[in-house]
């Protein structure tokens, strides 16, 4: 068993070394990072010192950019227009937005609730943190990179705490992580092909459609499961699919002691692969990984959500290194989000000791469905970008954007409320039980 794992890990590290040019998502072609040192309005050129090169380059300001867009002495991401000739600037984004007190507080609060959610259901929270960072002004690639860099320490702390509570199946987590990393690499290739074929708009559309479909279907299934449990049986039953799959005797069979599952290793492969692929394309791995572990492998929601933190840690560390090499991590955002999320994740983790299995499923389902609505609101915008539907009134699109953002905040709020309510109820019950004990002792 150990031999197989070592061989797989060696193969993975080998692939990483060979393909170390690629970050956790494809860094777009014709994009450079650097600092503008000089601007010449007369010739409409600007001098830039590109990262990693000592010499200065001169770029021409393209038709899409005005002189006012040029900010000197601040790091920018510049994308060139390859069709307009060499060295023509198409787009400039400031890499690091101005940090104000409001933004700091926003990052702290969002980080805390995201961490609470992670500690409780195992999902990384990337689906809400990345759009939130982008709406604060970070370019997309920087938002994804910074989130990745915050995900792995948060997952590490959460996994450690939940391991202390006896909920983590380390073996299952590592087995899933190995195939998840392979899945990430596959997902990156798919993402690149789509980007090259259909450009940014097509990529956004593909990501959103997959996102909505996966979250709506899986979320609906989990909701139904959670609701049947609240009505009738209180003990979690292993799903029928998992029971059937566990009967398949295909070497190598693996025993996962904490999850109390004995299953062929081959069954874990597609679960891990899809977790990785979806993490790479739509930035949500946990929403496949956790249900996969519950319904396909047959672990309880408690163990599945805890074990997912191990997978998230490994994937996050892996991806962060790649993004770090590409130089796209805004460490201020990472650390400010960590400030809140490290408290939140530990609170969420200890909260799971006070609740039943179905509460975890309920929170997961609620979040998945609301976030599906949030992302679904953006689909008409992407369809119009690709001219697949006629461009409607601008106000309609602005309204859709607002719906999308606020639905995300509602998802966070709802999750926070359910988790807090369940935890408070559990803690009060526990305290009442403890108080009943001395009376029992006195009587007996």
């Amino acid at each position, binding site marked *: 068993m150990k031999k197989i794992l070592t061989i797989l890990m060696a193969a993975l590290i080998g692939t990483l070394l060979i393909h170390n040019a690629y970050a956790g998502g494809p860094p777009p072609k014709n994009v450079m990072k650097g600092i503008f040192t000089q601007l010449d309005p007369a010739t409409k050129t600007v001098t830039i010192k590109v990262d990693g090169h000592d010499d200065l380059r001169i770029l021409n300001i393209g038709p899409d950019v005005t002189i006012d867009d040029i900010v000197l002495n601040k790091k920018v991401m510049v994308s060139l227009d390859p069709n307009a000739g060499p060295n023509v600037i198409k787009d400039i984004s400031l890499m690091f937005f101005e940090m104000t007190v409001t933004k700091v507080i926003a990052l702290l609060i969002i980080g805390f609730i995201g961490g609470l959610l992670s500690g409780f259901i195992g999902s990384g929270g990337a689906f809400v943190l990345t759009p939130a960072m982008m709406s604060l002004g970070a370019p997309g690639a920087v938002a994804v990179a910074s989130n990745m860099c915050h995900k792995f320490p948060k997952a590490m702390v959460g996994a450690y705490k939940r391991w202390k509570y006896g909920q983590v199946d380390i073996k299952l987590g590592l087995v899933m992580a190995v195939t998840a990393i392979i899945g990430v690499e596959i997902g990156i290739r798919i993402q690149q092909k789509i980007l090259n074929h259909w450009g940014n708009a097509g990529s956004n559309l593909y990501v959103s459609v997959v996102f909505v479909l996966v979250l709506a279907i899986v979320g609906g299934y989990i909701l139904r499961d959670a609701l049947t449990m609240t009505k009738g049986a209180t003990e979690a039953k292993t799903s029928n699919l998992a029971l059937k799959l566990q009967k398949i005797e295909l070497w190598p069979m693996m025993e996962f002691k904490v999850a109390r599952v004995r299953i062929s290793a081959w069954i874990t492969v597609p679960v891990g692969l899809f977790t990785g692929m979806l993490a790479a394309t739509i930035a949500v791995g946990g929403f496949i990984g956790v249900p996969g572990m519950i319904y396909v492998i047959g672990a309880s929601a408690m163990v599945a959500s805890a074990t997912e933190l191990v997978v998230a840690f490994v994937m996050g560390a892996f991806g962060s290194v790649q993004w770090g090499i590409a130089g*796209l991590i805004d460490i201020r955002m990472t650390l400010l989000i960590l400030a809140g999320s490290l408290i939140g994740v530990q609170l969420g983790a200890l909260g799971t000791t006070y609740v039943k299995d179905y509460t975890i499923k309920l929170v997961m389902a609620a979040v998945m469905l609301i976030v599906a609505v949030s992302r679904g609101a953006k689909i008409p915008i992407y369809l119009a970008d690709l001219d697949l539907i006629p461009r409607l009134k601008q106000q309609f699109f602005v309204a859709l954007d607002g719906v999308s953002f606020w639905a995300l905040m509602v998802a966070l709020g709802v999750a926070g409320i359910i988790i807090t309510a369940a935890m408070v109820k559990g803690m009060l019950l526990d305290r009442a039980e403890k108080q009943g004990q001395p009376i029992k002792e006195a009587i007996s």
Partner: protein
Amino acid sequence: MRQNDSYQTQLSVHQTTRKSKTGSISKTTDTTKVTQPAYRKKKPIGKMVVFGAMSLGFYALLLSNMQLVTNTFTLGGWYAVLPVGTAFLFSFVHGAFASNFLSVLGLEPKKS
């Protein structure tokens, strides 16, 4: 609350010598029962303050040198060690603070 703390009792059965009225000494067993408030874990206020101060110090350092930090950390290549290493460092220090903070607030996992 201290009043609501459960009690712990200690029962001990031991041999004693007893002097009877007639003056003869005999060995018998006796039980004693002692009750005291249950042992209470002390709250880790000291640890919380230490880690909190360290964490605050690190954050102050970061926020006062924002531009330098962001420019150096995004140079790419081997500089990747900087953001990844910093994330680890902060997570250990701030994570320890958060853990002690939650304990001080009385939020502990359920013992089952």
